């Protein structure tokens, strides 16, 4: 007691508070454990942070919106301030969205903050995933966290779509209609699921209320849970760092959480929030008042879904004509199932990739030093192919806009996209792999012979040479610090049998590593250094001769 009292007097309010809290929750141990935890620094590590912070902004702005929004599809005649829609029939959901926009101060601002941050959330999560993929951050021990992150990305899309449909405007209503059409195309159970979802026939009077429950409770709760798992695993594993001098699989190099990271990451939250706010104050997003309430008959040309749904819409558009088949009396809508299956398979491949690569390399060690993308040429090429596949599907959702804006034939644009969907990922794979291998060779070249200095020297016997400057030891280490994998052969197991799995793995390992470029070793570097030294001596001699 007397101790606390003196502590309070001696160090003032802050120490007093700290003491009060510690005596009740024992927080000092936590601070000691985590206060000086080291985090590595790199701009690409901020992508995940952007996603996290935009999610917080979504929670804040979304809560504000729930106080005004009414998720009811009951028909009303609009009598608000927006003159063009006065007297129109619409759902209460749409009317209350209009009221938020036109009758609540800061209402439109919050709607736009919410929508922009949703777009940013999925974008940042996607880029974060790409960063993790291309740097190999998904390797052991982080495979499970990759899957958790993948689930978060899918949940992000789900949150986006359920929210997009809530205002019950013409655009989102048509989006729901497309969902309804897709569900009906599912064999056996399609019509049942559709009536269960919509509470009867499309559009019914239930869907907005149901999506609202999902959008404000279930989906965000799931996102929070998976986010918590994601972050706990992040702390458990400690963050990865890029390869470089002093960075090892057994250490973590960076700055301490307190004070540097608290200031940087805390400040970055305000920067992300501020940028979203800036965009939301200046740029309109989803002007629902222009579309009118949902009506199944009209539709506006050139409509686009939110960007992250684009690839699914594109998949629907790219399906070739006449894919519907009759099985007896029943209709099999392959024009819907094929895009659906392709999208799901694509997602499954993304989720499972870490396990596949681990099976190929057979590497069971922990990896905490990130790969430079060039140093895993086939992985990088696979990633590029995947990105290209996604991008073509995504562009496929804008075939009509591409055709009208560039004055091209819609049909030709679409056929081009269909062909591109198959050809371009293969091209992207080959080109990317070649670029990576060339970059690796360039690195090797620099490690062995140094950088071109641009200094041309004429030797006494007339030969011109360019002087190369050897890289310093820190730069050199960065060039050679990567794992050198080599293909394996199909080997018999303990019983002397060569299993199919062993054969497959041998093939896969050849596919991955047959062209691999090994890092320069000390022996090679020294041999070259000797040669370089000789040249340097000649150069020095030539210069001295000139002086004389």
């Amino acid at each position, binding site marked *: 007691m007397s101790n606390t009292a003196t502590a309070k007097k001696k160090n003032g309010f802050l120490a007093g508070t700290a003491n009060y809290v510690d005596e009740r929750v024992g927080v000092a141990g936590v601070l000691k454990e985590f206060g000086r935890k080291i985090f590595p620094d790199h701009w690409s590590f901020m992508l995940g942070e952007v996603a996290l912070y935009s999610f917080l902004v979504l929670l804040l702005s979304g809560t504000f919106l729930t106080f005004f929004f009414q998720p009811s599809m009951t028909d009303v005649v609009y009598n608000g301030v927006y003159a063009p829609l006065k007297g129109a029939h619409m759902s209460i959901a749409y009317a209350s969205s209009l009221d938020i926009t036109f009758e609540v101060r800061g209402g439109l601002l919050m709607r736009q903050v919410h929508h922009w941050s949703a777009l940013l959330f999925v974008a940042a999560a996607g880029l974060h995933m790409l960063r993790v993929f291309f740097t190999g951050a998904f390797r052991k021990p982080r495979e499970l966290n990759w899957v958790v992150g993948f689930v978060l990305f899918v949940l992000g899309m789900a949150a986006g779509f359920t929210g997009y449909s809530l205002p019950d405007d013409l655009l989102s209503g048509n989006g729901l209609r497309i969902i309804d059409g897709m569900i009906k195309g599912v064999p056996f159970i399609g019509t049942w699921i559709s009536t269960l979802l919509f509470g009867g026939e499309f559009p019914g009077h239930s869907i907005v209320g149901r999506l609202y429950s999902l959008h404000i409770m279930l989906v965000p709760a799931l996102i929070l849970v998976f986010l918590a798992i994601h972050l706990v695993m992040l702390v458990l594993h400690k963050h990865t760092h890029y390869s470089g001098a*002093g960075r090892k*699989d057994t250490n973590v190099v960076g700055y301490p959480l307190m004070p540097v990271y608290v*200031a940087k990451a805390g400040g970055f939250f305000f920067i992300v929030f501020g940028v979203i706010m800036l965009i939301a104050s200046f740029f309109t997003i989803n002007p629902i008042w222009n579309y009118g309430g949902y009506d199944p008959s009209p539709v506006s040309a050139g409509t686009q879904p939110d960007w992250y749904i684009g690839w699914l819409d594109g998949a629907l558009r790219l399906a070739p004509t006449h894919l519907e088949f009759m099985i007896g009396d029943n209709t099999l809508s392959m024009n819907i199932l094929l895009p659906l299956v392709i999208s799901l398979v694509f997602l499954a491949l993304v989720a499972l990739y870490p396990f596949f690569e681990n099976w190929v390399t057979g590497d069971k060690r*922990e990896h905490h030093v990130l790969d430079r993308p060039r140093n895993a040429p086939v992985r990088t090429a696979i990633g590029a192919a995947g990105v290209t596949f996604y991008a073509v599907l995504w562009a496929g959702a804008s075939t009509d806009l591409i055709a009208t804006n560039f004055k091209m034939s819609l049909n030709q644009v679409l056929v081009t996209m269909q062909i591109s969907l198959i050809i371009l990922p293969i091209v992207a794979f080959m080109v990317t792999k070649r670029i990576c291998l060339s970059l690796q060779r360039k690195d090797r070249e620099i490690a062995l012979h140094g950088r071109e200095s641009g200094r041309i020297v004429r030797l006494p016997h007339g030969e011109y040479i360019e002087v190369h400057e050897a890289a310093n030891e820190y730069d050199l280490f960065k060039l050679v610090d990567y794992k050198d994998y080599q293909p394996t052969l199909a080997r018999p197991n303990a019983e002397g049998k060569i299993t199919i799995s062993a054969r497959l793995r041998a093939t896969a390992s050849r596919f991955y590593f047959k062209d691999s470029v090994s890092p320069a070793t000390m022996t090679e570097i020294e041999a070259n250094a000797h040669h370089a030294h000789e040249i340097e001596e000649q150069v020095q001699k030539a210069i001295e001769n000139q002086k004389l």
Partner: protein
Amino acid sequence: MSEQSKEVATTNHSSEAEHVYDGGLNVVHQDAVKDPGIEPHRVRMTDKSPKHEKNAVRQVVALFTLSMLGSAFALYAYFAFPINEDLTTVRNNTLFLGVGITLGLLGIGIGAVHWAKTLMPDNEVAEDRHAIRSPEDKRAAAIEVINLANQESGFSRRKLIRRTLYGALALFPLPGIIIFGDLGPNPGDKLRHTAWKQGTRLARDPYGTPIKASEITEGSVFHVIPEGLNPEQEDYLEQKSKAAVLLVRVDPKNLIESDEKKDWSYQGIVAYSKICTHVGCPVALYEQTTHHLLCPCHQSTFDLVDGCKVIFGPASRPLPQLPIYVDEEGYLRAQSDFHEPVGPSFWDRSAKA
């Protein structure tokens, strides 16, 4: 180039039995370049020059002050730019309130980051990682706990208890699923019927006024709903979702009609369901010169004069045709409902109702 390392990889002959290495296919080079350790710290201007340090402090203070001003301005803007009937007030309210909050946020954010980057130490520190895998003694202790729990409960030993527990656990969620059954009614035959009946007059969408055949000039398009469908009724949108029709008059000479559907049109006036057979968007774009109908959602294209068959895009089936006739007063009427379900395909759409 990598000859040397390839050698390392292939010295294990293919005849040798498979051996699992921790590093898998990773070839470790004995003469790899040595790690020189963390690069020495580079001193910043703010570390060595008091003038720069003082400047940085001033900048951070200025940013935090800017934030205060921004937030104060946002409070002012909330009252100074109210919203009224004039729509430009909505823009001003959004803009000024937003700019104030933006300054309030960015001032804190940029200030804090600037503080960290210029005034807090930027020495890189290394910390050891510990293997994620628990140490062997801990693993052994954990296994012991599990074994003890198993022994005390008899989980492995008492097979019948275990199996009935599995059964119980498998069944208990089922009621939780089935209670969602009343989310919606049985689909029934609702997808097969629309609001069109024999003699229903064709009316303009959305006004509901009936249409005379004489009002339709060649090449014009009418968006049509069944007469009597009005927004006050409970199932207005559901009915409209199925009954929306597109009415077009073309030169009768151009019409290609099957014998069966010969009398479904009237002097070149044809009525087709407006609901796309792909996923149900309204097929609202009509191209007069080519007689093509285009769905704006996924670009399925239908040839209006040839029974609305699909000529492009992901749809597979023609748009269903509504048989029409003209009564004595000259009004267009439906001969019957559509002869097939309208809109997107579903599994049993062709089954006899």
